[in-house]
Structure formats: C-alpha cells, structure tokens
C-alpha cells in the first residue's frame, strides 16, 4: 500500500500545483484544496500506515496506529478549512469589486 | 457457518466495490451534469455500505460514525449540488 499512498500524495500535490499556477482565482483555490489533501495525507503517513489498529485504547488491541500525526492532521484540516474560507471570500470580494476574477494584479501601476 | 458469513460479507463488499468502479465509469461517461451529481450520491451510498461491511468484517464499530456521517453529508451534498444547478444560490 505504501507505494499507492505515495503515488496518491504525489498526484494530489501535482494537481494542486498545476491548478495553483492557473490565472483565475477559482482554479487557484481548487489547487489549494488539492494541496491541502496532499499535505494532510502526508502528515498522516508520517505515523506510517496501519490497518485495523485505531488508536483507541482497548485491552484487546494488538497495537495502535500512531495517534499523534492523526491529531496533527485534525488541526491541519480545521485550519485549512478556515484558510480556504477566507481566500474564497477574498476572491469573491476581488471579483465583485472589479468584475474580473484574475489572480494577477498588474502591480506596477 | 462463519465461513458462509465471511463469504457473504466478501460477496457484499465485492458487489459494492464493483459498484464503485461502475460509478467511476459512469462519472467518466456521464451524459449530463445532473448525472454526475447522481454518481456522487450513489458513490456516497456505496461508501456507506463499504464502511459498514468492513466494520462488520473486522468486528469493529470504530467507523460507524463515519458511515452515519457519510450518509448525512452525502444527502446534504446532493441537495446542495442540485440547488446550485436549479437556483444558483443554494441558501436563498
């Protein structure tokens, strides 16, 4: 499974990066969503893969998955939701303010 | 008997997993936009089945809430997608 998960992380990352390099706000936001999937899975695997070993203390359990990365991913998921929400509304504000949903600014002016 | 149960479980799992594969195919070939929403809805229903079946197979109830929430959110997603298609504004 390790190779499959690694390929999934790589694919999610690549998808996120490609979309982040687009010119409109919406695909950029989608790209960020993909990156956050990728990184959440990445943090998760830092505790290595375990099947059928949830970190719920139980006398019958034969072992536990590493709970710490799971807790970290929880934090990361929550935070990335907040961040996504903020960038979405900013994109909205930028679009409604100017009628244009490009991400690039033309800063020089 | 346990063998029969195990076989039945595996059969059911295989059915829903195959269903998931068919969903993927439909997703790829979906003729209309609402069809895609339907695919998503079906996938979440199939996912509920898979989660419960795997839980039954391993004798663990750990993922019961996950199944419950997939059922709940699958419904909400479907409604949201459809409302968007129908009205644009999903909370109007």
């Amino acid at each position, binding site marked *: *499974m390790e190779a*499959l998960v690694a390929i999934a*992380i*790589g*694919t*999610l*990352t*690549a998808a996120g*990066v490609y979309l982040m390099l687009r*010119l*409109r706000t919406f*695909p950029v936001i*989608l790209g960020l969503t*993909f990156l956050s*999937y990728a990184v959440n*899975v990445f943090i998760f*695997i830092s*505790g*290595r*893969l375990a099947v059928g*070993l*949830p*970190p*719920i*203390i139980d006398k019958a359990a034969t072992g*536990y998955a590493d*709970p*710490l990365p799971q807790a970290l991913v929880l934090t990361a*998921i*929550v935070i990335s*939701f907040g*961040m996504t929400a903020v960038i979405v*509304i900013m*994109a909205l*504000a930028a679009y*409604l*303010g100017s*009628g244009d*949903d490009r991400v*690039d600014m033309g*800063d*020089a002016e | 008997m346990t063998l029969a149960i195990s076989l039945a479980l595996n059969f059911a799992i295989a059915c829903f*997993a195959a269903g998931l594969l068919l969903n*993927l195919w439909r*997703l*790829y070939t979906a003729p209309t936009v609402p069809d895609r929403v339907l695919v998503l809805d079906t996938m979440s229903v199939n*996912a509920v089945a898979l*989660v419960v079946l795997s839980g039954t197979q391993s004798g663990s109830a*750990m993922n019961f*809430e996950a199944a419950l*929430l997939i059922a*709940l*959110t699958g419904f*909400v997603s479907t409604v*949201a997608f459809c409302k968007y298609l*129908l*009205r*644009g504004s999903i*909370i*109007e």
Partner: protein
Amino acid sequence: MSLALIAVLPFLGALLPGFAIRWGRSACAGMAGLVTAIALVGVLQHAPAVLAGQVVQARLDWVPALGLNANFMLDGLGLIFALLILGIGLLIILYARFYLDEADPMGRFFTCLLLFQGAMLGIVLSDNILLLLIFWELTSLSSFLLIGFWHHLPQGRQGARMALTVTGAGGLAMIAGMLLLGQIAGSYDLSVILEAGATVRSSPLYLPALILILLGCFTKSAQFPFHFWLPHAMAAPTPVSAYLHSATMVKAGIFLLARLWPVLAGSPEWFAIVTTTGLVTMLLGAAIALFKDDMKALLAYSTVSHLGLITMLLGIGTKAAAVAAVVHILCHATFKAALFLSAGIVEHATHTRDLRRLGGLARLMPLTFALAGLAALSMAGLPPLNGFLSKELMLAAAAQTVWAGQPWLLGLLATLAAMLSAAYAFRFVVHGFLGPVRKDYPHAPHDPGAGLLLAPLVLVALVVGIGLVPTGLFGALVDAAAGRVTGGQVDSDLALWHGVASPALWMSLAAVGGGIAVLGAYPALQKVWAATARPDAKRGFDAGIRALAALARRSTDSLHDGTLSRSVGVALLAIVGGGIYAFTGGGHAPGARSLTPVEATPLIGWAALMVATAGAVWQHRSRFAALLLVSIVGLMVALGFAYFSAPDLALTQITVEVVTLILMLLALNFLPRTTPSESPVSRRVRDALIAGVTGLGAGALAYALMIRDFAFPTISAFHLAQSYPGAGGTNAVNTIIVDFRGYDTYGEITVLGIAALVIFALADSILRNPHATARLRANRAATPRAGGWHPQLMGVVTRALLPMAMMVGVFIYLRGHNLPGGGFVAGLVFAIALLMQHMASGFQWAQGRMPVDYHALIGAGVLIASLCGAAAWAFGLPFLTSGYDYFAVWPLEPIGLATAAIFDLGVFLSVLGAVMLTLASISRMSVRAGEPADDAAFDNAEGGR
C-alpha cells in the same frame, strides 16, 4: 567647555531658530549666532593649550561592542578647522540675516545651517573614525537640505540630489575604508590609528583601505572626476554657497586627507593617486572657471581648482608641501568666503550674476568693489595678500617634486594653474566691476547696508592682515596644525619675501603676468573654448541616474508585477531544488520496514481518487464539474483515513468536506461559472512540468518516510501510554487534541474564529461597495433559474432531520473522549444540520429564527476554552492542565468527566459559530443581490402563501 558639548551644541541649538522665528527674524538669526558664538568661545578656551602643542580630549563610551565611541579631540589641525567652521559660520549667519528674503523660511534655514555646522564640527573634533563617519554622513544629509533650500527651483532640487548622491556614494566607500583601517590598526580611535602608520602602510589591506578612503575624500572635496557636483550646489542661497565652498563641506575631504596624512601618506600609491588627482583637478577647475560667465559658477570652479591644489600638496608627501596645504586651507577659506558674499551682494543689487551683463560696478558700489577686489587679488596670488603666501609655498613645493619622472613638469603645470587662477580672478574683477557703467540695470545698484557688508569686511581684513603679518597668531596656528599633519615639530617660515633666489618668486611672477595676458586674449580664447566640445557632466550624471532609475523600475516592475504564478512557480522550484540539494548532501539509507499488503477494495478507492483528481485537473475550467470531482476526492481521502485506522480523521474529513462544498457553491454562484482557456500550450506544459516535479518530490519523500522506521522512539508512545491513566480518555487522538496538545487546539479554534470574523468583515465591505452590489444584482438577473424555491418535501423532511442530526452531534461530542468524535466534529455536524435548515427554508426565514448570534458563539467558545485553561491557575497548575474524575448518580452507572470536556465544549461552540458565521456572511450577499424573503418554511406550507 567639554569637546563633546561643543560638538553637540549646534545640534541642540538647531532646535532654537525654529522656535525663535516667532519673535522675529533677528531673534531667529541671533539665536543661531548665539549658539555658534558659544561654541566658538568653547573652542577658543582650548586654543592656548592646543597652540602649546597639547591635544585636548574628551572620551565617552558609546558602543564599545562596535568600537564606536564618542571620543573627541582637539589639536592644531582640528583647531584651524573649528575656527574656520565657527568663525566663518558666525559671519555667514550675520550675512544671511540680511540676505534672505521675507518669504524665505528663515527658521528652517538656520536649523539646517546649524545641523550642517554641527556635522562639520563633529568631523574635525572626532577622535574615533566611526564617529567621524557619522558626522561625515551627516554633512551629506544636511548639505542636501541646504542646497535644496529653494526647492521650488528645479536647480535646487537637482543640485541637492546630485550632491547627496555623489558625496553619499563616497561616504559609503569611506565606511568600508574606515572599517578596514580600524581593522588593520586594531582600533577605531584616531589617536591609536595615528600612531600605527607603519603598520597600516605595510598591511595587505592598505591599498583597498586607501582607495576607499580616498574615494570618500575626493567625492566630498570635489576632486576630478567627482568635481561636477560642486558647481551645481551653488543653487543654494549664496550664504550657503559661501559656507560650503570656503570653510566646510568640500574642506571635509581635505581635512580627512590631512588628518590621516601621518597614517596613509608617504607611500608611492598615495603620491601617485593623490598628487595626480589634485593636479588634474586644479588645472581642469581653473580652465573651466575662466570661461564661466556666472559669477558664482566661476567661483565654484575656482573652488574646485583650489581644492585640487590643496590635494596635490597633501599628495606630494613632504613636510613643506603639507605646511603649504595647511596655509592654503586657511587662506582659501577667507578669500573664497569673501568672494561669494560679494557675489551675493552684487546679485542682490543687480539681479544678475552674469559677468557679461555686469560692468562698471566699481563706481556704483565702491565698497563692495573694494572688498571683492582685494579678495580676488588674493585669489590671484598677489602680494601682500594672504593668497600670495600660500601660492608661493605651493609653487615652491611643486618645483621640488619629481612627477611622472620629470623634475620640472609639476612645477610647470602648477605655474600654469596659477596663471589660469590669476586670469579668472582678474576677470571676476575686470568684467564685473571695471569698465563703463552699464545702463541696463533694473534698479540703480548701490552698496548694501552694514548688515551685508560686515561679514565680507571682516574676511577681507583677515585676507589683508594675514598677508601682512603672517607670523604671530597665524603662524602659531599653522605650526600647530602642520605639526599634527606631518607628525612632527614644524616651524613654518611664513613671509612675503623669500629673496630672488626662490624659484617660486619667478613662477609667481610668470603666473600673474600670464594671467593678465590671458585676460587680454580672453575674447579669442573664449571663441576657441566655445567651439570645443566638452562633456556635460550634469547631463551625463542626470542621464545616468535616470537610466539607472528606469532600469530599476523596469526590472522591479517586471519582476514584481503581481503575477501569482511567478511567485508560486519560483517558490516551488526553490522548494524542490533546495530540497534535492540538501538531501543529496547527506547520507541516506533506504527503509527496512515491512510493507502493508495491497487489498482490492482500497485499491478501487485509490483508483477513484486518482481518476477524480485527474478529472478535476482535466475539467477544471468547468468549475461545477471540478467541484463535484473534488468532492469525490474528499470522500476517498476520508475512506482512506477510515481504512488506515484513523476514524477521527475520517469523521472530520467527511464533515469538513461538505461544509467546504457549501462554501464553494455559495461563492461560485457569484463567480463566473467557467474558467476561460487563456494560457498557451507552452505555459501549460511548463506548469505541468513544475507540477510533475513537485508531485514527484512529494511522493518520493512520502515513500522514503513510509518505508522506514523512526530513528528514535516516538513521543506518541507516551500519549498512548498516558491517554487513559493520565488524561482520562481511551481515544488517544482526542486526548492529544484536548489535553496533551490542547494548546494547539486552542490556537486552532482561534484560527477558525478569526477566519469567520475576517469573512464577516469582508462580506460587510462587499455589501457596502455599490459596484459589488450592482454586480450581485446583475449576476442574479443573468443566471437562469428554475422555479420552485424551497420544495415542500425537503422542508418537511428537514423538520425531522434537524433534531436527528443535532442528536448525532451531541452523541459525537459526548463520546469523543473515549471513542471517535469530539467537539470539533460535533460542531460541524450541528452546523451541517443548521445549514440544511437554511437550504430548506432559505436564509432569511431560517436565519430570522436563529436564537443566538454567531459572533457570540465564537466569542463564548474562545472564552470558555481560555477560562477552562486558565482555571488550572487556581490550583497552581499551568494553563490547560486538565483533571478528571468519575461521578456516580444513582441509579446511573458512573460516568467519567474530564475538564477537557469543557474545553471541548469551547471547541464545539467556536467551530459552530465560525462555520455558521462564515456561511451566513456569504449567504447574506444573495439577499443583497435582490432575493426576496420567504415568509414560510417552504413552498406550499400551511399558513404560508
């Protein structure tokens, strides 16, 4: 008076004129004069000791770590300069009081002047080269303000900027040079460095240090090729020009050459660079001065020339030459100041400085003529004036110097320069004051009042007095100064007459004679001059700066043009490149962990994830389709978490997913539905390459990590071991979240709360923007919509589903500590339930029945979490220390209650509040877009319409 106080006095005093201007112009000038006079008295107090050969010192530690200390010293060299700075400063203040116009802001003028004076005084009093550097840079800054004083004139602004740029650049070179010098000498204190000449000159760093320091000196003292800024500095008011050109600013470079003479001079490099630079400057300045028609320009170039002369003398490196330099510093200051002040008087009287439009002023302004004439003759080097004294010494020194391998060449060239000098001095007098009286003056010019005449009068008195009685006070001063320069006892032999055997006498005669001849041939020479092509330094400089600025603008704007893909793309390349570079620099052993076998069902999930991901990228321009595919990705990730023993993650992922989806759909309603195809194939290929490389990196890293074991036992072993006995919960993930790492969660809910606030504030600003609301309405009008607002079936089902979902939320909250769940997921479930109600009944109907304000929920959540954490203080325990116990209430079975549950309640509330505030803020926009309010829970409801 302590030297430190003297040095600081002008700076403190600089505040006064600004206040004193309320009491009138005289009070203002008087205040400036008073400060200067007090400082002058302070310096004079130390004069006897200094003349007796002592070095007065004042030491104050400032930044010992840097070697920068507020150490001051006053010796002969410093004394001469201090007297010039303060003495001439006093005269300038007097003159300026009467020179400046009613409209000129006098307070600002004197403030700047005093700042400048203080900076100059600081340079000559510093006994620490870093301290000196500070004052050095301050002269650049304050002269910038003085030159640009009349900033309504473009010449003023340009001249100021040019002076700042050139002297500033030199100053920065000087910084490097001084740091090197200090490094060689082992101290930044001048008194130490002055003793370390031999060490310095033998150091390998000597040459770079020398060049850097000389760059500083030459720019400041307007030496070729940096001479061009000085004439443009005359855009300043005439008193400023007089001050800058005579006693200060340009003399700072000369001062430093003299100051460091014992350390730096005496090497072939020094001789070659300094002498040659001085010589070229002297000749060039003199030649240009001759052909300038503007009186001030003529004087400005003459300053360039005379500074070259002094530089040359310091470069020669002999004692005699050094003495001559010191003498000329003094003499030049007096006659040049007098000349500038006279030029100012002439301009005041005639409203012109153009020598071609002047003439015959001798009869109209006899007093001015007398003063200007004497000063000019001194500049021409005629006896018995002081200019003659120093010129003789100069010519003598030049005659004795071998330059470019020729014993006679330097003497010849010096004589040539002296001749040109005489010529332009004569021209100043003859073309300005002699000849027939012109009739075209706007007003009849006449001598000014005593206020303007007094200052030049005092200066001319010095010109004459020193010339006539060179020894005495003046001689002692020169000896003291020259002694410090040459590092030994000096007994200068200052006299007008050295006998016919002196070659200088004949050279001098030749110069004066030649000068007269040149003036006679002036019309012819002028034609030749006019016909010769000369580089225009100012135009070149301006063009250079403009080109530089344009280049800067182009590179800056093209690099920082607000293109997101550039900043992202470059960052990614740096990430991947940096990561690979670092990785390959260290050892790597592949992991030895046994791998997890592949199973069929997860494989299908994996395939779904990959297909949906690829599809989302492929279809991203159709935004709705992309969102759908993203939902599938989210579902598969959640299933993956469930499969790989992370039920809590699965729950969180599932719930966050749907909330995100609602958010995106709400937003997409106001955004374009599709993304136009606008990037060329090449760009897409490039982006795909970047994406591929990044993905490859991430995947490879993930793989490398997954297949290896931890290098050390992981800290989560403690969490697992202590989850139940220590934190009172069997769900280790939850105990980490609410207890072991509850502080992370504390930050995390704050993030969510802040996010909601930000969103609310932004939505508010959108709704207050008329353009935005107009766009909202137009967008609503343009969107094709189906009929049927809130289907009845949905409305009815929601009535049952809402409490059901809430019950699930309560369930998930309550058991989170022991089994998958917790406050966060519970909050999301509640939010989803409420959002469902919003979708069923519409924003206004559902929101109108909401019993609580979301802001309050967020605030309460964060407060509860904070207070729960802070409650531990009451028990002397750190923030967020949790306690738990089992409580039994008959007939129920005992339940475990942890204070962490209260913390989790804070999490629940803030999550609920944040999600609802976020989505409500966006939903609110549709109201502004023109949506009417629904007055019933759903369509065709009982009692509804």
